[in-house]
């Protein structure tokens, strides 16, 4: 495989149907750049996406890809990575896909710590179904299905991941091309489950969590004295509320991926033409 892959090689010739101005354009560009800059190739990369606006990403990128069932992208990605650890596996999804219908898989994917990355396009709204509350919508966010607000505490994805034992937590803003790409790249390079929550504004249905809002609120954690290796400090940052941090918020430098702990090395696609040579031993075990 060629080593001088450009990010454009990860782009398909299919034009995105996202609304003009959608945060997902920037999110996807960053993903493609991160993959190219980490020496990956479309033929060696497996992208999995769920359902929602974010789910379309596999169509607009060029690689091996599967667009699956709502909320179940993570287990598909984990299965592919364990079956062939040589692959670069990246899972993409939205806040509904990852934190609502797929919340169970999110927690367990974090716990399992397989060496892959997970990029969530968090726009705090359900866009594809035309504007209903998402698990990260604000408590007072009025939508067609929550006319009086959600009256529920929003999911805090970073805190959720940390409490599940995350080894890498990043957060980015889709229009901060350089910052976003850098963090996704670190997530790809991380030895374990690299989780990145991306503020990816919906210009059509969310008039609260807008570009302007994020531009005004975001604090680059790299410009503070925060140490990403300090888990206690990370817990404080992600639970203090009121501040939208971007950057690498936590990274466990001693992370050992699940597949290494489990001794998974082989490409499971390669099998003999018949039963294994010593297969009669399996029968004799029952003697």
């Amino acid at each position, binding site marked *: *495989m060629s080593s001088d892959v450009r990010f454009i090689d990860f782009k*398909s010739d*299919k034009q995105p149907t996202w609304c003009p101005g959608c945060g997902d354009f920037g999110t996807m560009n960053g993903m493609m750049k991160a993959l190219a800059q980490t020496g990956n190739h*479309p*033929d*060696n*990369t*497996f*992208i*999995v996406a769920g359902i929602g606006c974010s789910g*379309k990403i*596999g*169509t607009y990128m*060029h*690689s*091996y*890809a*599967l*667009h*699956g*069932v709502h*909320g*179940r992208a*993570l*287990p*598909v*990605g*984990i*299965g*592919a*990575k*364990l*079956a*062939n650890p*040589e*692959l670069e596996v990246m899972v993409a999804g939205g806040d509904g896909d990852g934190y609502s219908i797929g919340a*169970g*898989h999110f*927690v*367990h994917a974090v716990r399992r710590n397989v060496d892959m990355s997970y990029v969530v396009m968090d726009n705090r709204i359900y866009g594809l179904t035309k504007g209903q509350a998402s698990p990260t919508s604000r408590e007072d966010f009025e939508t067609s299905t929550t006319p009086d607000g959600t009256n529920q505490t929003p999911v805090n994805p970073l805190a959720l991941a940390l409490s599940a034992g995350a080894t890498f937590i990043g957060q980015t803003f889709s229009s901060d091309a350089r910052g976003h790409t850098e963090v996704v790249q670190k997530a790809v390079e991380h030895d374990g489950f690299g989780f990145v929550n991306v503020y990816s504004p919906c210009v059509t249905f969310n008039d609260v969590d807008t570009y302007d809002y994020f531009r005004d609120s975001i604090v680059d954690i790299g410009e503070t004295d925060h140490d990403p290796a300090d888990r206690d400090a990370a817990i404080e940052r992600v639970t203090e509320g009121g501040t939208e941090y971007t950057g690498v918020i936590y990274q466990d430098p001693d992370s050992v991926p699940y597949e290494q702990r*489990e001794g*998974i*090395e*082989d*490409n*499971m*696609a390669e*099998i*003999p*033409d*018949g*039963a*294994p040579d010593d*297969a*009669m031993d*399996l*029968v*004799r075990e*029952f*003697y």
Partner: protein
Amino acid sequence: MPDDLNWAIGGEAGDGINSTGKIFAQALSRAGRHVYTSKDFASRIRGGYTAYKVRTSVDRVESVVDRLDVLIALTERTIDENTDELHDGSVIIYDGERTSMQDVEIPENMFGLDVPLKRLAEDAGGAIMRNVVALGAACEVVNFPIEYLDSSLSKRFSDKGTAIVENNQQAARLGQEYTAENYDQDYDYDIETTDEDYVLLNGDEAIGMGALAAGCRFYSGYPITPATDVMEYLTGRIDQYGGKVVQAEDELAAINLALGAARAGARAMTATSGPGIDLMTETFGLVAATETPLVVCDVMRAGPSTGMPTKQEQGDLDMLLYGGHGEIHRLIVGPTTVAECFWKTIEAFNLAERYQMPVFLVSDLALAVTEQTFSPDTFDMDEVEIDRGKIMESDDLDAWVDEKERFQPHFPTADGISPRTFPGTDGGAHMTTGLEHDSLGRRTEDTEVRVEQVDKRQRKVDTAREQEEWDWREFGDPDADTLVVSWGSNEGAIREAIEFLAEDDIDIRFLSVPYLFPRPDLSEAVEAAETTVVVECNARGQFANLLERDVFQQVERINKYNGVRFEADELAAEITDVLRPQEATTQ
């Protein structure tokens, strides 16, 4: 003296019933005797009663019968539970020193052997071995050479060290000696041994072993009775071949993990029971639409809902045939014996990859928990064939790209089967999706492409229908007027029932059907028969309904849905009943 011996140990859950029963079954197997086992979990009264039953003979045994010759009763209730099966001259071994067993009443016509199981076990090194003392006593009763029990105990406990093995062997000796010294009765049992080498395994283990033989390298699952043994069998063993078992957070994840592994090129499978199939159904359509080879095993148990989790039923057929929204292409294979669990698993993997679609492997609790003896060459690994279907390497791709040099994973070929590349194959990058897609795997709502892709997927089923032999297994008299049809684990009981019926001059032609979709055409057989009887463990007659629709003719039904598998003698009586009114009308 009958040719077969029916033996059981019963007590409370937690008494080590299963492991003790298995030790005895293994000893018989090592003595060159055939064994067929079953498990009782509280058949009449709710509670902790459990029993492990062994039917053994020098000849093959394929089912349970309604008769118990020797019973080790750890509780009084064990005797009550088996009153109907016990008979004149049955032997009951119990520990009269156990407080709860002091007042136990042995029916007058039976032999009660009061053996101080716990005390003798303590003499041998620990009360925990009291069941083994009882096994020693049982050896004495049926004149079974205790060396085979030694050998089985050694297999069971060797990983715990020589001392434990020897203590257990000593415990068995004490039980045997005590019985010989205190009970001088000749019970007229003489367990013949042979030089045959047999292996002893259950249906779940056979499925697991079949998966390994077939090159399955990835298994994901969520524990559920009675499918967990598949997962436990594979755990550790699959690692020796570079594979892995992954315990998922739920069945939704289990099937999606397996799907991911299959997309990466691994032969992947998941096994579950009805409640898990409910959850996995969400992903069936995705597997079919993305044309991913996947083996999904359903070890059926009694439903609906939580139903009776440790009880036999064949109630999932409709769900496996029709489950999921939209029209989902699938193949359904259903082994009818423990040995067939092995071979059909291998076939399921080949079918899945050959036709790039989900294959349901449907088994049932009776197969899953039955330990049965086989000659090792029943599982001749040299006979295992692997067909991976249309897998493309980089060099093959030129023939399968479009005008823009893009690989077409869903190209509508004549037989419907498209080329397949795994991630890592240069030039083969493509996406696929549960959305309707074009030959490139990209979303489309184009009406012509939609029809082209639906037709292409259907063509795979047509091709499979033509290329494969969707055979039945035939037994009995091919010219008999009475045709019995069944699927799943009932095969063994029906085969024995045929022998019982032959004694009453009732001839039966029996077709055991291991393919549910596509399935063999039984029209001619049904037409040729005067009476067709479909035997199955469910209330509605799901297979009978299918057959009636296939052959446009009504069939008789024997349905059992109390949670207990068919017994051969019971089944013979039921078949006789079905035939009786017809005889009356023809007279």
